[in-house]
């Protein structure tokens, strides 16, 4: 019988080295942090609010607070770089981008000094098409009695032009490469990696190129940035939209390809009911079209060592009731823990006594 004692407090170390993490923003309360520890999380990703002071001293206080609550910080992101003005300045190549690049470099150096290993980006989109995409995910369908976010391909490709001109794919590539080539030396010097976030499998919508729409685009980005510190947040929900239209392909193959090349820096673990060109809902992991166990097993098998973050879930919070806030997250984290343990047991049979 396996009755070997496990360490008190915190999750037991998995044999695979994969962690389950959660995203919090800089306003996270001590009580929420305590809850995440109780749910067995000891890795975390911190989003710094746009309104926060992002000076070194202020970040140090924030990260100390999170670390003192028992967490390893896997990655950080700053809303500052996605607000309308800043996102459009860097993505559309508007005047002022060199100042933002300078800020970004300073931020990366600060992260390095603060021992944060990873900066997380959120795709390379103009602000309005970034937001359109979120607007399209409004709840419109039900899964198991829960509202779930819904996306409709025909609606996305017929979005009206978002700006007074078009921003074609090649222009977006130019701004991406310009920005990334300028910031990556600072990332490398500071020991910080940068994770780009692949987006839906639609090359252009709203009149703006969406460069991260395919496997080929991921390869092109890695080649043109040319940095060993540049990789991806493997967002299964977004990438799987291109599973059958020839743009991303099979998720397990993508995991193997990028895992073998050590370019998977984070994983967003999510399933959808279907993929483009069909409409789909963001589903519970077990109710989507991908076999999530197979994907977990592939991550373990390819030697991935980073964090897996439970991503969007149908909205099954029962307002003002015993179910209340945090219960949906508990379900999702528990599911991931069970799936990870099962994959570790089967892929690494001698992993845990």
């Amino acid at each position, binding site marked *: 019988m*396996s009755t070997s004692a496990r360490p008190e407090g915190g999750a037991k170390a998995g044999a695979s080295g994969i962690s389950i993490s959660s995203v919090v923003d800089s306003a996270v309360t001590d009580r929420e942090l305590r809850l995440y520890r109780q749910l067995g999380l000891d890795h975390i990703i911190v989003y710094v609010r746009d309104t926060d002071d992002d000076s070194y001293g202020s970040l140090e206080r924030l990260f100390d607070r999170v670390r003192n609550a028992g967490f390893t910080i896997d990655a950080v992101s700053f809303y500052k770089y996605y607000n309308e003005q800043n996102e459009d300045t860097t993505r559309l190549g508007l005047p002022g981008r060199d100042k933002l690049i300078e800020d970004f470099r300073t931020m990366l150096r600060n992260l390095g000094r603060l021992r944060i290993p990873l900066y997380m980006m959120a795709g390379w989109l103009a602000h309005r098409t970034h937001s359109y995409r979120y607007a399209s995910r409004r709840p419109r369908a039900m899964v198991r009695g829960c509202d779930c976010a819904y996306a409709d391909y025909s609606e996305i490709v017929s979005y009206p032009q978002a700006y007074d001109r078009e921003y074609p794919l090649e222009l977006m590539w130019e701004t991406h490469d310009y920005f990334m080539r300028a910031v990556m030396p600072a990332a490398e010097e500071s020991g910080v990696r940068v994770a780009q976030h692949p987006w839906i499998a639609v090359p252009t919508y709203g009149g703006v190129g969406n460069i991260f729409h395919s496997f080929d685009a991921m390869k092109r980005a890695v080649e043109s940035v040319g940095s060993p510190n540049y990789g991806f947040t493997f967002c299964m929900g977004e990438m799987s939209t291109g599973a059958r239209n020839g743009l991303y392909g099979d998720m397990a193959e993508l995991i193997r390809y990028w895992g073998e090349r050590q370019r998977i820096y984070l994983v967003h673990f999510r399933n959808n009911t279907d993929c483009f060109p069909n409409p789909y809902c963001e589903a519970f992991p077990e109710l989507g079209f991908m076999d999530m166990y197979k994907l977990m097993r592939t991550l373990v098998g390819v030697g991935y060592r980073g964090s897996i973050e439970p991503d969007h879930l149908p909205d099954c919070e029962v307002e003002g009731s015993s179910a209340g806030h945090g219960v949906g997250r508990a379900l999702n984290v528990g599911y991931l823990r069970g799936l990870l343990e*099962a994959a570790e047991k089967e892929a690494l049979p001698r992993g845990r006594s």
Partner: protein
Amino acid sequence: MKLAIGVNDLSDETLQFAEQYGVTHLKVNAGDYMDERRRGPVQEDKLKAAIARAASRHLKIWVALLPQEVGSQHWNIRLGRPGREREVEDVCRSLEILGKAGIPVVEYVFNLSAVYGSEYLPTGRGGAVVRNFDYGVASKAPAEPEFAATVEEVWQRIEYFMKRVVPAAESAGVKLACHPDDPPVPRLKGENRVLGNIEGLERLLAIVPSASNGLNFCQGTIAEMGVNVIETIHRFGSRNKIFHVHFRNIKRALPKFEESFIDDGDTDMWQALEAYKDVGYTGTLIPDHWPNTASGAPWTGQAYALGYMRAMMERLQVLEK
């Protein structure tokens, strides 16, 4: 196997939680369908209303627990007192009504002082509040005069019950699932507890050998006994004696143990689930107990357990959809 929860009511909130969190089957308290003192037979109209209510949320009532409270339906049987003849009739009539309504498993408890001696302390992972039990402390509790009976007297009471009730269960088509005494200590508050060890459970099953005489396999209680949980699943499961499972985990064992999150205890839950699969178990699994978390929402720990159980059950291809 069936992913289930135990419920204390069938409110909108409870049923919504069950449906949304992927539960398909319920364990209910049969006492809710008896008279206001949780005595007498199960009343058919109350039961039917409950079944219909659950069905409106795609949920099936699979297990009904006979009341365990002081003074409830089979209290005099448990104490070997006058009045037990009438109580046996009530239990048998209840089994008939439950069976007719399509509820296949009826759980019962024979001990008198339930989980007495448990303390709820922030000793769980991350300071979560969990049940702690220390026999060194609990064994000093003063005796309840009413509970005094020798071990053999307790067995005679159990035999009285089993010999009358098991045949009724057979003809009603229901399975009687005994919850082992929790905590499984030999003596508590003056009560001799004989169903808190493997030998006692074996003796219980031998009183009336029957396909209707089996166990609510409370995996937590079995682990508290300090025995090999996986082997014990095989021991009873291979003979089809497991009718319902409390799928929970603990740390350590008697004389001193504490409950834990499902993935944080001493039992390897993957191995346990494989063992239920190996013996061909197809009944219900419920989280039973769970730690109280900082979320303030009482079901958070249960939701965590349900997610964990579902992932493993799907992988082992044992989850009944």
